[in-house]
């Protein structure tokens, strides 16, 4: 099966140097997650034609939208793309109905045909009651539905959703996310969903691309990201401790030494000479008031930066350490109390050789 979307784009924007390559098949959804300023919205704008790449090629549904070597740059209004903006950008002078019919009218579709298809879309998204309202009268969730309807009525080959949930309060966010995911799953085209929240990325998407400083640092399915982060950034998004190094020696007892940027680690299940990533679950890390003896193989000194109770009841606490590298331990509230841990306190963190999960 050929890709529905294939894009290679490069764009320099001030400090940011965006460079991305995407290949997506029809009917798939990709979640792009990254911090604000990582280049997520810029990437969407390049695909939509609202900004011009410095170089690259964009092909969607067999049509070339942009090709710097061939000198092709199709204007935004000729591209078969739907875009739901972060603030929805509903036209304030038009009713919800007129907003939804805008794209058809712009193409000169006859009035009665516009009416019919708008009515159809209103019914499909279950927002018939909002038809006559102005955007100012709509709640955040309602505005999002109208913006989605406005984009979907044109049956775009590529649907771009830029933080479509961030303008909503927490309670509506959950229901709207579920509805949105169900709706998007039925679309024949490609959907790209951008978010800064790793939680939202995990909840929404099966396929996730992590963007950091203009680069896609990891692209994979949910489990791959959760279990095998390949950069400190992804590991932090997933709440894992992370190391990266080369196996420098192996011993008969199966315990190997890995040289990392932060000293030598002891791990198991690796081969000499290979480059490995090591993820350590925060629950596998033990805290001590004094430097522990040899039973635990990996020891770090640090100062407690922050203590965050874990939901739902806070009987577990995340202890964030100011150490080299920065570490997170998750311990019981009871342990934290008996050790009378508090921010600013110097402690030792350790994990056993078999607690580190090594992978290539």
């Amino acid at each position, binding site marked *: 099966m050929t890709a529905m979307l294939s894009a290679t784009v490069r764009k320099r924007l001030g400090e940011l140097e965006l460079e991305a390559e995407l290949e997506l098949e029809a009917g798939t959804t990709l979640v792009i997650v990254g911090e604000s300023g990582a280049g997520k919205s810029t990437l969407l704008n390049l695909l*939509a*034609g*609202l900004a011009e790449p410095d170089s690259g090629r964009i092909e969607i549904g067999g049509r070339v939208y942009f090709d710097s070597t061939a000198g092709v740059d199709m*204007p*935004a*209004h*000729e*591209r078969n*793309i*739907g*875009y739901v*903006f972060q*603030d929805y*950008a*509903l*036209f*304030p*002078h038009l009713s919800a109905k007129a907003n939804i019919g*805008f*794209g058809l*009218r*712009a*193409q000169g579709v006859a009035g009665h045909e516009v009416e019919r298809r708008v009515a159809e879309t209103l019914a499909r998204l279950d927002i018939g009651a909002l038809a006559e309202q102005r955007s100012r009268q709509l709640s955040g969730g309602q505005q999002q539905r109208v913006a989605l309807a*406005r*984009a979907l009525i*044109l049956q775009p080959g590529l649907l771009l959703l830029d933080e479509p949930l961030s303008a909503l309060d927490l309670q509506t966010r959950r229901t709207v996310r579920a509805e949105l995911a169900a709706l998007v799953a039925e679309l024949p085209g490609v959907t790209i969903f951008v978010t800064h929240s790793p939680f939202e990325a995990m909840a929404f998407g099966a396929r996730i691309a992590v963007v950091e400083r203009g680069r896609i640092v990891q692209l994979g399915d949910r489990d791959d990201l959760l279990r095998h982060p390949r950069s400190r950034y992804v590991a932090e998004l997933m709440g894992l401790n992370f190391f990266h190094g080369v196996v420098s020696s192996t011993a008969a007892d199966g315990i190997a030494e890995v040289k990392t940027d932060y000293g030598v680690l002891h791990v198991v299940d690796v081969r000499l000479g290979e480059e490995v990533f090591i993820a350590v679950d925060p629950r596998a890390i033990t805290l001590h008031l004094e430097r522990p003896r040899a039973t635990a193989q990996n020891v770090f000194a640090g100062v407690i930066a922050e203590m965050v109770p874990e939901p739902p009841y806070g009987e577990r606490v995340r202890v964030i350490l100011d150490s080299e590298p920065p570490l997170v331990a998750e311990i019981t509230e009871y342990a934290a109390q008996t050790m009378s841990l508090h921010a600013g306190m110097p402690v030792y963190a350790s994990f056993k050789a078999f607690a580190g999960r090594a992978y290539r």
Partner: protein
Amino acid sequence: MSRAALSPRLGLGAALLLYLLFLLLPLAALIARLDPAAFFQHLRTPAAYDALRLSLLTSLLATGCVVAIGLPVAYALATRDFAGKRILEVLIDLPIVLPPTVAGTALLLAFGRAGLVGAWLSPLGIALPFTTAAVVVAQVFVSAPFFVNAARAGFEEVEPRYLQAAATLRSSPLHTFTAVLLPLSLPSIFAGVAMSAARALGEFGATIVFAGNLQGRTQTMPLAVYVALQGDLQEAVALSVLLLAVSFLLLAALRLTTERRR
């Protein structure tokens, strides 16, 4: 309240009062001289009637021309960057501060029989000076900047997000202009129309130099007031009060539309 806080208040109050008196006194003097019983009679003299009709016609035509030319110019200034934009901005504003008689002289030297363009036009049987068309040209020249500046500001106030949204909804730039940009900047467009119409209606200096003072052809109301002043004072007063009322109403309407916007 302390004296230190009181005295700036007094000072401001006094300045405001003085300014208000200065504005109101001439207007009051004008209205005081009006003979209400004879008001309509004075407006019905052939000269006054011609001037009324001509002013209405020319300022409507002038405003129409200003909108037709000014909209694309304002759009270009608001959305594009191009070489010489700064110079163009200065040139557009120039008629606002240029003495109208200078504008009239310049128009005469351009479109007059022996003028820069006029010399080419006259063999074709087209002679602009001292015609009603010349009145319109003079009015367009002096009133256009008021519209262009207001419309441009209106366009610039529209969130670029809406224009981008329109583009992703397959709306061509022309459709986006008429269906999004124009409706969203309508209050500013109205303000510009009102300002430039008022300016066209009051045009005197450029008109008398370039178009002359021919009753029924180029003698607009401001010119008629000037002529009447030398003969029948009551006629001048009646015409003046009418112009005053129209100007006041235009500005008041403008205020209302901009207030409602907030």
